[in-house]
């Protein structure tokens, strides 16, 4: 009897996993921004990647529409995304980076190699700001309006068509 129950165990484990996978289907990682939209950017007080002495907080976003990009040297898709971010910077969009779960050396090396579209980078080695932002992985991008409120959220890699079809229209909308 006991052994029969033991043999049922794999089935039960699988069914539990199945329920989570089903929940996962409705929690599409590309459309899970409702919790953050129209909220203020989470509070933080952190140093920058470029200068360990300089502290920044949400006042950074006051007065100008800003695109906040969460990236890390360890993240393959971030490297593919850089040309698009550089293009956005060329078009006059203000970008702020969040260097997520990285070391200072690696982060700076990344910017040197792949280009630096960011006005400044918030250094977040422990992922605390990323946690508050609900970041699931890098890259993720948030659009913050001139009052510091999150208005748009993009999960994952930004390709050239995203820039054209989503990012630029959103930036203009909140300008």
């Amino acid at each position, binding site marked *: 009897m006991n*052994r*029969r129950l033991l*043999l*049922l165990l*794999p*089935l039960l484990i*699988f*069914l539990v*996993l*199945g329920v*989570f*996978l*089903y*929940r*996962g*289907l409705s*929690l*599409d*990682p*590309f459309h*899970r921004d409702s919790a953050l939209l129209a909220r203020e950017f989470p509070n933080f007080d952190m140093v920058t990647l470029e200068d360990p002495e300089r502290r920044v907080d949400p006042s950074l976003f006051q007065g100008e529409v800003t695109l906040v990009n969460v990236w890390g040297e*360890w993240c*393959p*898709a971030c*490297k*593919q995304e*850089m*040309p698009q971010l*550089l293009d956005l910077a060329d078009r006059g969009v203000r970008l702020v980076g969040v260097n997520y*779960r990285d070391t200072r050396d690696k982060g700076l*090396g990344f910017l*040197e*190699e*792949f*280009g630096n579209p960011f006005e400044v980078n918030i250094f977040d080695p422990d*992922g605390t700001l*990323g*946690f508050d932002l*609900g*970041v*699931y*992985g*890098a890259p993720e991008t948030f659009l913050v309006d001139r009052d510091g409120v999150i208005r748009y959220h993009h*999960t*994952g*890699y930004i*390709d*050239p068509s995203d820039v054209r079809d989503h990012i630029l229209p959103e930036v203009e909308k909140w300008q």
Partner: protein
Amino acid sequence: MLIKMIPEIGHFALVIALLLAIVQGTMPLVGAATRRPLWMAFARPMAAGQFLFVAIAYACLTASYMLDDFSVANVANNSNSMLPWYYKFSAVWGNHEGSVLLWSLMLAGWGFAASRFSKDLPEDMVSRVLGVMGLVCVGFLLFILATSNPFERLLPNMPSDGADLNPLLQDFGLIIHPPMLYMGYVGFSVVFAFAIAALLGGRLDAAWTRWARPWTNLAWAFLTVGIALGSWWAYYELGWGGWWFWDPVENASLLPWLTGTALMHSLAVTEKRGSFKSWTVLLAITTFSLSLLGTFLVRSGVLTSVHAFANDPSRGFFILMLLTVTVGVSLLIFALRAPRVSHTVGFNWVSRDALLLINNILLVIITVTVLLGTVYPLLLDALGFGKISVGPPYFNALFVPLTVLMCVFMGLGPGARWKSMSARDLGRRVALSGVAALVLGAVLPLIFAEQWNLWVAIGLITALWIVLPMFRDLFDKTRNASSFGAGLKKLSLAYWGMQLGHLGVAVTIVGVAVVSHYNVERSVRMGPGDSVQVAGYEFTMTNLQARRGPNFLADTATIEVSRLGSERSFEMRPEKRLYIARGMPMTQVALRPGFFRDLYVAMGEELDGDDWAMRIQYKPFVRWLWLGALLMGAGGILAIADRRYRRRKTAEAPAPAAQEAHA
């Protein structure tokens, strides 16, 4: 006229294949249950017919690509008239619809192969095996026809040219990587079908494991090589020199590989000793289930990944249903039919049986670790605990020590005897190798590298610990023969396969350990005439020019490289390409491969003037990574060639080779 109808012919062939698969999935199974030979006789012809019609459908899609038929949505989205013909050919599986079709083609192909190479199996076993495979085919063909039809037309407004194949996929590695990987994934369906057939027939003896072993080895060899090709492709194509990223999709391929490895070993125990019966069946089901889970993760969009295909919730739901039905029903059959009483044949804790048990436990722990890391973000999200990301640090912190631990037992395994032996005897056999591995592994990095590194030393000790006892074992096995050569000849191919596979693991470990810690990487700014020294090599940019390829524009740098103090030099030509149709930039890496080191030059961003950001890397022993995987794959194939699998008719009598141990 007929040419214009090609997509419709393909679509129609798929429907016929589905109907044949339905017959294949029902008649033989019912026939086996009710003992009706006529019904069982449906199995083989249906398997052949189904394979034929899926192949026709696949050929039709390929023809649409080759003929640039942009009225087919799939072709319009993934091809372009400027694309070279070989990329048109491979573009078929560079997208979701085409790759599921390839998957189905292989599934039908494996089914056909199983129907051809099963002459000596009892008729009811064949019927059940092919019936189960037919049911899996039904699931996938329904999936294609219901949610992912590759033959959908864009009429009447067809585009004049296609959107082009993603430039990342325009590469030789991508021509061969997915087919190899799928062959592995899908190949496990055969051993899965054997396991279910054995459960249904109540015939969980050693016989089914002997039939299943060659199929398992073959699928495993394909998967091993497929994973290695993927890693190799990422290494040279993505342009930043990494070879494994713990990306969810990479993990999805690693999971069935891990349980497949456990399965190969546990099949050996079941065949030789008759123990672990239920466990082996469970592993067979798990391995194929993880292949299906991988498909679900990649195609449903529940996880974010660079590899993920375009998502569509209806597809995700369909695959989840397919997964639930297949795995749920299999595990239910397992729960109901697995032997109630365990006939575990006793063994001593110092024996090959015990070591293989430990190997299986560790492999399963590693599998669970990787699986948890992959789906953990999803679980937390579903439970409402917010989002987290699991990165390489988690995987490395758990995977590396567990692997080292497993290798400790791996060194002992081949030298151990079945059933029982004295600990002293085992100790005597490996003591010398152990001491030699410790000393050599600790000292070698001191001699050949400027800096001693603990992890490299551990890696080398581990690798030597696997390899050295193999020589000792060879010596032991040939000692009683008239000469060393005569002794070698008596060893079975299966034995050589095992040794080669283990050697491959050791070679891969050396590659991983050395390249992870002695890799030299410099990001520099360079213009024509500039020169830089990295790891004992001098790199000079001699030229910078623009060129036009078939479907891209490129900036090409010419870098002259010479070893410091050497006269000889060679050229490397990294490129930065812009693919015209998609406006997508790509880095084309320049590689100078070598047995002991790779030189790796990639162009980064264009800086002011003629200067470019360049990334120069020196990667020692990186080739060993993939060389090891090739050796593992070769080991798997070699074991299949063993004569006991070719002499089925006399298989009931213990073959001479069976006396030797094959772990």
